[in-house]
């Protein structure tokens, strides 16, 4: 997990007191005091896969983009991301990355189009970096405004049923990666069907002062369990999703990170985004190294930083690793050089000086249950 170490006092989300009152263990994360766990990581992980998990993700940066002429915000984002933003329909959300000139990643984010404006959600630990990046590439036709709101995620097979009584919109009509404004818990809210667990679920952006009551109300449902950062990490690892600071960085390109799906054909042909030279070359020729899943033999996890070897030679590094409670054993993701990153390739992870056998495996480790359009 990417902690930000600095001397500034920890910020608190509107739910910090609620977490503390429920006995959560709080840790510094992205400059905030955040819950690491409530009942325990495995119990919370399982509760999310089987029922519904409730996450405070208010540390994440929420931004609003306004434009002085139609299309300006989309055009600007097409300069900053390799994704199709011009074609993003009203009410649709898209996962993408902000690239830098060198073809690395400034941050990964969700972009939602609401017609006359857009909304962005960026990583908490990357708020300042994103602000600086936007300032350096500012467009006078586009205004970026931070939104000071709570953000709550509810994820899992019971998420829709648990949330539906408290929102004004018809959740069954909201498909994966779409969003709508409406009322939630009596306040104005933005509700998106998306998440970071591989499960179906929602994110609700709502005023901070109603967040504690919303949280408490949802927790009264026996199928809903609060989930801390610990299980958030095991859930996203099983879902094969990148964590910025580990699997994505200013040096790692989106092609290396194997998220080339964010870059559709038009963008590959036209380019015109920061870092396009490197990114398009890697997309055409194949990257020198690539993010892969790793299945680990035995029960010793290979964690971030473990070197990966083939025949005694270093060929990669683990960037995220741990135990997958649903998988029932250790799993990891890492970057492995070409020639050794095909699925099924046997490698060794060096853990405490010993070689642990690992096999390059397909991602995700646990199939996605997102509710896609049928």
């Amino acid at each position, binding site marked *: 997990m990417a902690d930000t170490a600095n001397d500034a006092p920890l910020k608190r989300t509107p739910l910090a007191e609620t977490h503390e009152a429920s006995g959560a263990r709080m840790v510094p994360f992205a400059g905030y005091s955040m819950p690491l766990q409530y009942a*325990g*990581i495995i*119990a919370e992980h399982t509760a999310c896969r089987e029922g519904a998990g409730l996450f405070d993700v208010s540390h994440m940066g929420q931004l609003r983009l306004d434009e002085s002429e139609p299309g300006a915000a989309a055009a600007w984002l097409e300069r900053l991301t390799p994704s199709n933003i011009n074609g993003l329909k009203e009410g649709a959300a898209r996962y993408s990355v902000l690239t830098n000139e060198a073809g690395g990643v400034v941050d990964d984010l969700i972009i939602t189009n609401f017609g006359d404006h857009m909304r962005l959600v960026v990583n908490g630990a990357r708020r300042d970096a994103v602000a600086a990046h936007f300032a350096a590439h500012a467009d006078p036709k586009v205004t970026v405004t931070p939104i000071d709101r709570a953000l709550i995620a509810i994820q899992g097979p019971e998420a829709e049923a648990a949330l539906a009584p408290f929102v004004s919109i018809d959740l069954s009509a909201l498909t994966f990666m779409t969003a709508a404004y409406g009322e939630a818990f009596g306040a104005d809210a933005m509700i998106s069907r998306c998440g970071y667990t591989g499960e179906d679920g929602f994110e609700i952006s709502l005023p901070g002062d109603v967040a504690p009551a919303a949280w408490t109300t949802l927790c009264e449902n026996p199928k809903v369990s609060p989930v801390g950062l*610990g299980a958030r990490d095991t859930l996203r690892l099983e879902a094969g999703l990148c964590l910025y600071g580990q699997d994505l960085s200013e040096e790692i390109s989106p092609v290396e990170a194997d998220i080339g799906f964010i870059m559709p054909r038009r963008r590959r042909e036209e380019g015109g985004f920061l870092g396009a030279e490197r990114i398009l070359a890697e997309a055409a020729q194949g990257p020198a190294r690539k993010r892969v899943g790793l299945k680990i033999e035995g*029960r*010793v*996890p290979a964690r971030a930083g473990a070197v990966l070897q083939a025949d005694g030679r270093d060929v990669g590094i683990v960037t995220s690793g*741990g*135990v997958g409670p649903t998988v029932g054993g250790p799993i990891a993701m890492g970057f492995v050089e070409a020639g050794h990153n095909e699925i099924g390739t046997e490698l060794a992870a060096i853990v*405490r000086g010993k070689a642990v056998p690992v096999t390059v495996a397909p991602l995700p480790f646990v199939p996605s249950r997102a509710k896609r359009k049928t």
Partner: protein
Amino acid sequence: MKRYTKDHEWIEDADGILTVGITDHAQEQLGDITFVELPEVGKTVAKGDAFAVVESVKAASDVYAPVAGEVVEVNETLDATPELVNEAPEAAGWFAKIKTASADLSEFMDQAGYDEYLKTIS
């Protein structure tokens, strides 16, 4: 009588054979334990050696030998049921037995002393 170290291990002496494990506080801090790497029986350990590793869902943590000696027995049941360390850290979740020539445990804390120590670090 049980003794406790500042590294959150407990030690119980039975005629120069010391049973060693981690404290309830330690298991609580570590969270769900998924694997314990124990030393081999017969291994000689120096005081302060990392002689075992606890893998929790969160992280890997070293466990240090509180005394020098020879590992004469390890808790094989942890192999199949590492969660015993969470459930009964100071009983069925013991780690290893170390045979030592000089079992002077006076430098370690008793239960009351350890309870006081926990208050100072929380």
